[in-house]
């Protein structure tokens, strides 16, 4: 078969195609997003963005009830949103195979926490496989569909950033020639989880997990790599790669199935070694269960629990080398992430800063409104939290402070789980204000469509949710829409909303500068006329990457601003802050 280089995410998508998946649904989330983006190359799969992970799981459950194989993908925190249907679907079991790929983000490269999804598999009582490279992402996901049908269970596959976003060589498999037969098939005793039915199902799944654990002891996805020495290592997933690299000679039990654990196999392996290491990323998930079996192991007392592993961190953990000493170079200016030049969010946060608003934030590019010099975000918890946080906060403070509380949420996040909070705001008469930053896309994850963009995952036109109409429909009387490039208008709209005694919503509408569909008006970049620039630094207060201070003296106190014309999008926000008309438009 054909050999190719695939990322873990591309391999998950390929696996869905090979396994005969008919329905795939997801909400974007780093590092899982590219799975669905890659799935659309396979025409026979009905792939779509759902407004949130809970809906995507419910859609896939429906497809499974109809006899089709179905895939859902999400980032680790997406499983929190999807947990409700998942936990009960574990009780009913499947008709067509159902697989959930949960992509964890150890080290929080692009996340607000680093929860370990393996705990969910155990908690929800669903089997979980953990691939260690792109080949296994393909093979294990295909296997997951077979297990799902064989053991009548939804099956989770755990990925991590270093699997999803790493590429390695993969040999492709043959796709199933025929898709499963679909159609209505009534089975209410299995699918209607009234207490009477659920009480019947619970012991069934407990028994099924026991059978799976025993069967898995003799399956090739749990394998022993024979080595030398007195140490045996138990590991799984990407942690296996680090373990293999650092201990090239050791015997390794590499687990493919991490829930339920193949206990007999573990016991047999551990009995052969004087010392057993458990090397796993994040929580002591395998370690605690192995200890509970009465086996003594070395685990998190050496291997870091926080952050991702690496060959170096593992070598340090086992005292194989000194901490890597950085060169004694000068201290370098840091380069944290920043909003893009021309980002429509920038002016909004500038206004919030000036208005001294207390901003409950949310998940998206705009969380970067926290960064100086904008420094206009006071909280960020999870998708949709800005709205409820603002409501609750305003309940417990005095009249004067209540009007300072402003929730800020993006369009995609608002439709994900923000709308529920807004219903509560109106229903319970909150005095807080909500800003919906409508940039017409799901920005942070790489510009995916959502129900408010008018396009589907496959690029087809769709109904576009009317955000103003939606806000009015849930009872918001004061809805204002502004163009965030118009600084004065934006500031006045927010100020007026903050003063309004009832719930007020300000929608700032301007497409993301990186957007795909809308043909954006290309504007000429700006320049600074050095004769007019007084060096007042007003334009620096928006933190635009295209504007740089040019110091004229040693300590940099005096100087002028300069625009990088390759970066500047001509949005004109800086120009509106300049009192000396020092900005001009490049005409060449």
């Amino acid at each position, binding site marked *: 078969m054909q050999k190719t280089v695939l990322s873990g995410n591309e391999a998950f998508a390929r696996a869905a195609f090979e396994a005969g998946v008919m329905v795939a649904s997801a909400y974007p989330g780093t590092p899982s997003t590219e799975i669905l983006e890659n799935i659309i190359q396979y025409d026979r799969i009905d792939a779509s963005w759902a407004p949130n992970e809970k809906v995507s799981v419910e859609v896939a459950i429906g497809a499974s009830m109809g006899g089709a194989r179905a895939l859902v993908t999400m980032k680790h925190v997406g499983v929190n949103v999807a947990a409700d249907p998942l936990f009960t679907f574990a009780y009913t079991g499947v008709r067509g195979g159902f697989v959930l790929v949960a992509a964890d983000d150890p080290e929080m490269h692009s996340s607000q926490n680093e929860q370990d999804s393996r705990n969910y598999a155990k908690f929800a009582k669903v089997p979980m496989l953990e691939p260690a490279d792109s080949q296994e992402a393909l093979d294990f996901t295909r296997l997951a569909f077979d297990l799902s049908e064989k053991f009548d269970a939804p099956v989770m596959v755990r990925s991590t950033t270093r699997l999803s976003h790493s590429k390695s060589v993969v040999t492709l498999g043959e796709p199933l020639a025929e898709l499963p037969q679909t159609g209505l098939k009534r089975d209410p005793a299995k699918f209607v989880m009234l207490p009477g039915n659920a009480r019947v199902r619970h012991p069934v799944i407990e028994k099924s997990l026991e059978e799976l654990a025993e069967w898995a002891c003799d399956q090739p996805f749990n394998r022993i790599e024979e080595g030398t020495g007195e140490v045996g290592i138990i590991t799984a997933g990407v942690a296996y790669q680090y373990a293999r690299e650092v201990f090239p000679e050791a015997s390794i039990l590499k687990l493919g199935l991490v829930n339920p654990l193949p206990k007999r196999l573990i016991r047999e392996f551990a009995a052969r070694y004087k010392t057993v290491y458990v090397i796993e990323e994040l929580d002591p998930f395998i370690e605690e269960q192995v200890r509970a079996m009465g086996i003594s192991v070395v685990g998190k007392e050496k291997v870091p629990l926080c952050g991702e592993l690496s060959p170096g961190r593992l070598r340090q953990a086992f005292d194989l080398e000194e901490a890597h000493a950085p060169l004694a170079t000068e201290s*370098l200016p*840091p380069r944290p992430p920043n909003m893009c030049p021309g980002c429509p969010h920038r002016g909004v946060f500038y206004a919030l800063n000036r208005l001294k608003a207390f901003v409950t934030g949310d998940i998206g590019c705009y969380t970067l409104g926290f960064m100086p010099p904008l420094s206009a975000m006071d909280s960020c918890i999870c998708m949709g939290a800005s709205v409820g946080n603002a409501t609750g906060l305003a309940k417990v403070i005095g009249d004067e402070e209540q009007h300072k509380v402003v929730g800020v949420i993006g369009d995609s996040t608002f439709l994900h789980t923000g709308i529920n909070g807004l219903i509560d705001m109106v229903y319970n008469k909150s005095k807080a204000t909500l800003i919906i930053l409508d940039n017409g896309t799901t920005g942070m994850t790489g510009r995916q469509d959502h129900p408010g963009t008018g396009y589907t995952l496959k690029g087809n036109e769709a109904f576009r949710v009317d955000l103003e109409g939606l806000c009015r429909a849930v009872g918001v009387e004061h809805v204002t829409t502004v163009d965030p490039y118009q600084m004065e208008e934006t500031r006045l709209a927010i100020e007026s909303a903050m003063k309004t005694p009832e719930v007020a919503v300000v929608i700032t509408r301007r497409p993301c500068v990186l957007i795909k569909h809308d043909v954006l008006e290309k504007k000429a970049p700006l320049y600074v006329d050095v004769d007019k620039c007084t060096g007042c630094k007003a334009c620096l207060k928006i933190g635009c990457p295209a504007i740089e201070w040019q110091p004229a003296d040693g300590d940099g106190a005096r100087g002028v601003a300069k625009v990088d014309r390759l970066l500047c999008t001509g949005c004109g926000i800086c120009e509106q802050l300049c009192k000396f008309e020092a900005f001009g438009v490049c005409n060449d």
Partner: protein
Amino acid sequence: MIDNKVTNILMAGVGGQGTLLASEILSEVLMQAGHDVKKAEVHGMAQRGGSVVSHVRFGPKVYSPTIPEGKADILFGFELLETYRYLSLVKPNGAVVVNNLRIAPPSVALGQSRYPDDIATKLRQHVSDVRVVDGLQLAEQAGNPRTVNTVLLGALSNVLEAANEQWLAAMRKLVPARFLDVNLRAFELGRAVKD
């Protein structure tokens, strides 16, 4: 210069510089040359204008997708400061191929700190083989300023063992047809940079 079985290339740059196609072509070439290849990068928040690194490893068999700390054979930099930042991760007998480009980080843009002077000299104090490439200038010479990364790949190709034909084949496979010619020119201009 390559003294172990697995060769490690650490790519450093600023999020949004579009290094993806360059690392794709690089991985394809290395696979076609018969190596096991792994490449690791980050997406999402990490990409928004911040400091980013990608890892490319190749050899008979590669395990970890990330490079053991301090064991990079080649530091492939898309921006000067970011290359300097990760200098300690490259072996002293390794090589640095760096784009002669300066992008001011926020504290420099705000006038609160200074961009380090003369980074090329500082790189040379630690690593003997340092190649500074005028990426933008050569890309414009090739006919499109957006081919900077292909110019840099051309310069990188001189410190790797893959044949010229393997590079050209990978580009024909991965570069969209209408941009192929300009990218082939950009690659040649980069390959002509020897030090």
